[in-house]
């Protein structure tokens, strides 16, 4: 039987078990990479950030309290690595926007159908905070209070970002495929 995340974490924290850490990385690396690709839309940068996320995970694993899903906690680490990279990029390029300009044709993965491609593109067009809130909510399964904590924003603001984002997505999807 596959050991649970909690078992692996206990083995890593208590005994520094490298095999357990390797298993944990292999189990979650697709999730982390997909999440970072949605955030930065740059394959090379996402790969670097995946590595930084797991290094950070290893050094901070003893801080995981077990409250909330491990996946959401790991997603939070990945999001913070993305923010740090975006800030570095911003100071380097003297850009005001935290997020690099997203090429609207860039897709995160091979979409399973045309409508998911539309949604992927519509997601890329969202304002940065709305996009991040959607990614943390649907990509990381974070609760609204968890998103508020992660994005350092009031809970009401997060709810408002999510509602506005969904309205924008609805509008964009309706205009791209009016027959739906």
């Amino acid at each position, binding site marked *: 039987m596959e050991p649970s995340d909690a078992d692996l974490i206990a083995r890593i924290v208590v005994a520094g078990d490298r095999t357990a850490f390797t298993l944990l990385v292999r189990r979650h*690396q697709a999730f982390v990479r997909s999440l970072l690709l949605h955030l930065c839309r740059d394959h090379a940068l996402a790969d670097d950030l995946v*590595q930084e996320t797991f290094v950070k995970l290893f050094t901070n694993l003893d801080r995981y309290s077990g409250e909330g899903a491990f996946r959401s906690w790991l997603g939070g680490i990945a999001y913070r690595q993305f923010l740090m990279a975006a800030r570095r990029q911003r100071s380097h390029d003297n850009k005001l926007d935290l997020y690099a300009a997203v090429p609207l044709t860039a897709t995160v993965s091979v979409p399973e159908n045309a409508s998911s491609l539309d949604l992927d593109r519509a997601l890329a067009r969202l304002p940065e905070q709305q996009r991040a809130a*959607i990614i943390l909510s*649907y990509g990381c399964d974070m609760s609204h209070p968890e998103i508020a904590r992660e994005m350092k924003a009031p809970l009401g603001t997060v709810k408002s970002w999510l509602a506005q984002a969904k309205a924008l997505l609805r509008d964009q*999807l309706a205009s791209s495929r009016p027959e739906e």
Partner: protein
Amino acid sequence: MIDDHKIDDRLRELFAAAERHVVPADVSARIVEVLAHQRRQRRHLLLAATVLGAALALPSLWPAMMIVTERMAAIVHM
């Protein structure tokens, strides 16, 4: 018109599909290497700090201090 539930379902499916399709390079070996490198750096810096502390107290250790300074410079440039 696309309702709220449909948007919820489609967003969940989008992220689930992305995770299924993304083929990550196995980064576990590389991460273990990075962690080992960081551990080595920490050990070197700790050793350097110890020798420097001793050298400040004992002038006879100043030649060793030179070696340590070079080592620290190498670590900083790693």
